[in-house]
């Protein structure tokens, strides 16, 4: 049982950081282990934002191995060297926690090759690359993660988030959601459910050159959609295809630079409540998530089995 939430403002920006926090906080009882945000912020759109981690949060409840913090600095130096050798120009760098960084950079070449080289450094994982995507995930509830990464001030058009109860893999950042749609910039996925053909699909996709960072079954959705899009499918086509390609029970959200989509499995086994209006679409595992940002009386509904919907900003 996990909690997922998403919202998209159409035609305007809003304080999506705070809004998503309120939604995820309302879903805390569905997932107390970790919280993740994929915020599509009002950046200038000129440069890439890369968020990466060089180690794990080994706070209370974490299944990660404790490391000396000095290794984080060494790994960060290796990342800097690699960026230099790849020809990426770092314009701004921020150290958010001892183990996670946000870089603003210019880079024009292939992102897949770029990511492979950066992640060849021990324990380094790129959480996201995008021109508007800000992907943050860490242990703790929505409020704690918001405070730790100062997300309250983030304004943007749309966002998806996840409150995780670990079932298929450990309590750590690498298994937390959202997952970046590697190697596509600005693609992120959150998922509630279990996938039963994970290993078959993973083997097949790895043979095609796709990368998996965790053993969390939900990561498969991000990689699955990325592979479909790499072969020329649109996001919606990839999502429709996933209804038969992925086995198990799921409700997932996927977001790109200018759109937000949802898909529900053919058994309708996982919950989703949807609110749609001309200027806002909000959705979550439970109605209380939507109520936390829209306290007045609204009309909501449950999408049916096998439904796929995509909204543009």
């Amino acid at each position: 049982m996990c909690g997922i939430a998403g919202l998209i403002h159409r035609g305007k920006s809003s304080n999506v950081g705070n809004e998503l926090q309120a939604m995820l906080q309302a879903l805390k009882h569905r997932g107390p282990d970790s919280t993740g945000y994929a915020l599509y912020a009002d950046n200038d759109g000129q440069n890439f934002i890369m968020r990466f981690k060089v180690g794990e949060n080994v706070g209370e409840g974490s299944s990660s191995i404790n490391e000396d913090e000095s290794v984080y600095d060494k790994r960060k130096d290796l990342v800097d060297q690699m960026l230099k050798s790849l020809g990426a120009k770092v314009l701004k760098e921020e150290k958010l926690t001892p183990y996670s960084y946000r870089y603003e950079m210019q880079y024009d070449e292939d992102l897949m090759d770029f990511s492979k080289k950066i992640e060849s450094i021990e324990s380094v994982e790129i959480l996201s690359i995008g021109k508007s995507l800000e992907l943050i995930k860490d242990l703790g509830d929505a409020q704690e993660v918001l405070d730790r990464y100062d997300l309250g001030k983030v304004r943007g058009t749309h966002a998806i988030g996840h409150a995780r109860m670990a079932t298929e893999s450990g309590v750590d950042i690498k298994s937390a959601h959202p997952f970046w749609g590697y190697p596509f910039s600005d693609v992120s996925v959150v998922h509630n459910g279990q996938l039963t053909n994970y290993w078959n699909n993973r083997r097949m996709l790895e043979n095609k050159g796709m990368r998996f960072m965790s053993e969390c079954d939900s990561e498969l959705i991000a990689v699955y959609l990325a592979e479909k899009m790499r072969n020329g499918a649109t996001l919606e086509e990839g999502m429709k295809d996933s209804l038969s390609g992925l086995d198990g029970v799921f409700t997932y959200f996927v977001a790109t630079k200018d759109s937000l989509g949802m898909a529900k499995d053919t058994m309708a086994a996982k919950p989703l409540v949807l609110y749609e209006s001309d200027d806002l679409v909000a959705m979550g595992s439970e109605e209380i998530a939507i109520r936390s940002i829209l306290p007045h009386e609204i009309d909501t509904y449950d999408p049916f089995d096998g439904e796929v919907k995509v909204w543009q900003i």
Partner: protein
Amino acid sequence: MANIKTNENKTKAQSMGLHSEVLTGKTQQKFFNPDEAENFYYWGTYDVDFNKRIDLDVNDLDCKEANKKIDELMSQGYGTIVIKNPQGKHSLGVGVLNKLNLIFEGSLGYFGVGSIDGPTVRINGRVGWSCAENMMAGKVVIEKNAGSCFGAAVRGGDLICKGSVGARTGIDQKGGTIIVGGDAGAFTGFMMQRGRIIILGNVGINLGDSMYDGTIYVGGKIGSFGSDAIESPMTKSDVDWIKRKLKVAEIGEDFDISKMTKVVAGKKLWNYDALEPTEKKGAI
């Protein structure tokens, strides 16, 4: 125990016009005495006055506090309780075992009004998953949509949703009537054992999958039939009964009932033996 199939005398429930079919196997009817039911008394229930009305704002209460407050008001004799600002909270209004007018001005979350026996509930918003689960008697009317598992395991009473419902409506239903004004999702009537479901709109795939007994009436298109669910011809008594029910539910006024599809169990998967669990224990 007498076999109902061979019992030629009409049971009290049949003579009251509740149903006319001859039931096979051991049923609730064998153990149910309407006289007894009228005088049935649960410990911890209250005599309330419907004319005594009060508003209760639950905006700042959690579900436990809100339910405790409802109980407190019933103990003071309030028979009409209006809940303001439910805000999609879970498990509101559960376990009410006496007559009561309960009105929700807003939407409920999961398990709204579950395990009730007797109250008349009106919800002016929508409800989340498993609304009125395990309801024994009473009437619940929802003005908007409902989530999945609507009316799971209900044993009696009328459960009415004027909007659309999610998947697995009436799963494990054991009695009573579920009426849906809009569409219903996949697996409607999954494993239902008795009772009736009326859907005026379309239904999704696997309608009536693995149903033991009971009847489903569908007004719109059917995605697909589930395992062991079959179509049965509509009779005049079906039409009359649906007409009566829809009138009470205040929906589908101009609906053409005769064109509805009636779905029943093929009973190929029937694996009930004739004994109720309690009897089985005695037999062993």
